[in-house]
């Protein structure tokens, strides 16, 4: 299915946030996930189902002042 991940259209076979993170090799620590502008709690990563066309943002910390 196609999703928009961090602004880019992308195909994923991950059905949940947890599967998407595994597929992308992104660790759960130090990241936050937003689907269609709603933040998904870490506890819900395993159950939250991704749908076709979802806009997903995954953020982490970078250097800043």
């Amino acid at each position, binding site marked *: 299915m196609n999703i928009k991940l961090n602004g880019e259209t992308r195909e994923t076979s991950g059905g949940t946030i947890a599967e998407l993170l595994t597929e992308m090799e992104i660790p759960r620590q130090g*990241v936050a996930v*937003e689907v269609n502008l709603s933040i998904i709690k870490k506890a819900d990563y395993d159950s939250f189902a991704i749908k076709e066309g979802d806009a997903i943002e995954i*953020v982490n910390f*970078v*250097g*800043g002042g």
Partner: protein
Amino acid sequence: MQEDNLVIRGIEIKSRFWIGTGKYKDFDETARVIEASGSDIVTVAVRRVNITDRKSPNLLDFIDPKKYKILPNTAGCYTVEDALRYSRLAREAGVSDMIKLEVIGDEKTLFPDNIGLLKATEILAKEGFIVFPYTTDDPIMCKRLEDAGAAVVMPLGAPIGSGLGLRNPYNLKIILEYSKVPVIVDAGVGTASDAAVALELGCDAVLINTAVAGAKNPIMMAEAIKHACIAGRLAYKAGRMPKKLYATASSPIEGML
């Protein structure tokens, strides 16, 4: 020396020098600068994970969250909505409830939009955030932020990244007199002496990034500012002598030939 920690909403901070992690050559330099600064609180920004290059290193691999308090910012946010969004994402990323809140009003000056800042402070404080708002050096604004639930106020010394030093130390003095919350100078410090002056005035801490990252030798500058902050804080606590217009001899008159 006696313990002189700053306590903000129960969080104990040892260092009066808070350091930003932006604009270093690489994460290795970032880690070495933090070490040299002696700081135990560092700021970070919230950005998209690099999904194209998953081999790129992660900042948090270089900053041990057990050793350092991580203070995420909302740098780059120009609206209340964006600042709230970044703050909530930062909290969910799981480091802490602290947020260095920036609602920027203008690209050229990076001065804060104080109206938006006040709104965002109010909302985030109600949501349980420990809000560190970056504001102008306006005593009334600082008071309003405090009343809105800010844990500290962070008046600028000069525009972000300008290195101009404290452009209005007299306003800072009034802010210090008015504030019941800690006052941390954020932005504008250009070199060690600027940091010393801020601490001598009685500011509780300074947050510095560009003065270190933009120095020819960032690691040496981090160490210099560390000493300046220690010196400034001690001088403040020691209580400076009053200024006088005319001379007072230091050597006795008695016993002169």
